[in-house]
């Protein structure tokens, strides 16, 4: 009975994940006119009127969802590990699959006992990783082109997200170790999950089915 009146707002990561996320939502039964996506509009209504999509930077997805401005979001696990938002994550979506790795120019540096200089966009993940093994690190927080840091001698190694490994290769870096796997997650605001239980339950089921079908290559 409340199903028809409940509108859900979904925050979608712009960039790397966007195309796959939209494809998945379309398979899950959401639809929108193609020109509504072509424009630079940051908010798009689904044709059924049940969903509103907003497009924001990956790191901002948990911010919108945690505050309840968006009910749900699609975001990489890397962002969730780095920001540790207080969210529900009921679905792994099997898109945007990649690894969070430590990469360096050579493995030799692991034998040194001094301070390890680590350049990264993920200071919390890096600190946790090296902290767990008692390695003292100097974290150098960068916002992009992290691969450059070891090349120029700014850092001994980097902690970064790697999809194919080509950028690493082209900059003479190789993977020293894999910290964890990452893929996109459907995240849900805690209050929305309870107050819009029916609509969100339905979204979880249909996106879950779509993920399954996509994995089976349908």
């Amino acid at each position: 009975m409340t199903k028809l009146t409940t509108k859900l707002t979904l925050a979608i990561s712009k960039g790397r994940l966007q195309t796959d996320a939209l494809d998945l939502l379309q398979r899950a039964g959401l639809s929108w006119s193609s020109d509504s996506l072509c424009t630079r509009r940051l908010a798009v209504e689904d044709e059924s009127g049940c969903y509103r999509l907003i497009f924001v930077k990956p790191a901002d997805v948990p911010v919108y969802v945690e505050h309840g401005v968006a009910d749900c979001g699609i975001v990489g696990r890397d962002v969730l590990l780095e920001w540790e938002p207080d969210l529900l994550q009921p679905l792994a979506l099997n898109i945007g699959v990649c690894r969070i790795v430590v990469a360096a120019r050579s493995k030799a540096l692991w034998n040194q006992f001094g301070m390890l200089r680590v350049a990264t966009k993920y200071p919390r993940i890096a600190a946790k990783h090296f902290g767990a093994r008692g390695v003292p690190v100097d974290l150098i927080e960068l916002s992009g082109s992290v691969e450059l840091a070891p090349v120029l001698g700014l850092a001994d190694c980097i902690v970064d997200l790697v999809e194919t490994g080509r950028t690493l290769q082209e900059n003479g870096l190789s993977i020293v170790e894999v910290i964890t796997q990452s893929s996109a997650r459907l995240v849900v605001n805690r209050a929305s999950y309870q107050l819009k239980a029916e609509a969100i339950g339905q979204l979880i089921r249909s996106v879950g089915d779509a993920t399954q079908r996509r994995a089976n290559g349908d």
Partner: protein
Amino acid sequence: MSEPLSQIPAGMRYYCGQEARLRRAIETAVMSIFDGWSYEEITTPTIDYYSLFEHGMGPAQAHRAFRFSDGDGRLLAVRPDVTSLVARAAATLFAQRERPLRLCYVAPVFRQQPESHADWRRESSQIGCELIGANSGVADIELLAIVCEVLQHLGLDRGCSITLTDIDVFNGIAEELKLDPDSRDEMRRLVDTRNSSDLEQFLAQCSDTKDSHALSRLTQISGKHEILNDARESITNARSRAALDRIARLWSVIESLHLSDHFAIDLGDVSRLDYYTGLTFKIYVDGTGSRIGSGGRYDSLTASFGKAEPAVGFVLELDALTDILLGRTESNSPAKSSTEPVLITGTDLSALFRAAMDKRALGERIVIDSSEVAP
């Protein structure tokens, strides 16, 4: 180097005007409902030993407190939680008092690190009540009935959801899997975030149970009473089953009171506070991104202070309630603005204040106008 005096520390704020009046009105309304159910007000210390909170809330939550050391080197904390303090008083100061004890409070709690990014406050006021030493089955319903009355009184009963679970459903499973404390906490975290894919992996790793898939569904079991049958299919251990039976009994009373519209069961809602032992619940209201209150049973907490007895309680977040009610412009708002004050003017100081005091003696609302007083 001097700091700018204008700066307010993160997570702190002032309240004034309409907002302050509304806060006070909500506080008064809720406390008078508590009084109506014969709950007696208790004021607890603002600062106490950190070990008390660490023991009560569990280290992970207590860590979020503002901490500093006393003159003798012992670690103190600015109250991050009231329940631990009340439970200790019940087991010590009130040990000889007749049971059940019904206590209520309104008090700010302080947390150096908020639980979520959306929760920016580091000082937030809690209104709560605790029922100690009463028959559990009756006490649980008494508290839920009080919660319903409060929501109704504040006009928040439409579009609210009180989600129930029994922490023993989870505990029974953790016990069956023979998890060590760290794995238990990891599993609790995965269930709490409804992370069924990681949970399934986790269960496959750490157990030889035949059916990790069935257990990982725990995260998705929510709804009205019919989900209990669903739960019984995947959950077979005795401790969890007993907990499911308790929820079923509670639900039938809720239904008979015609309150079931306000309630839902959510077995994935496993609380982060270590002291809960049985029923736990969270209160959500339309228009907020986070819960406005929570509560539950904490039977072993008083035992750790020297007197084992059943106990149950809940808190409401005064700041969250104020935010919602401020946003609603209903005429029955609990904060009615006061009557216009009578202006008291005059040139002579003693005449001015004689007039003022006379009006006050009649109970009138006044404001002193000093503009005509000779300098």
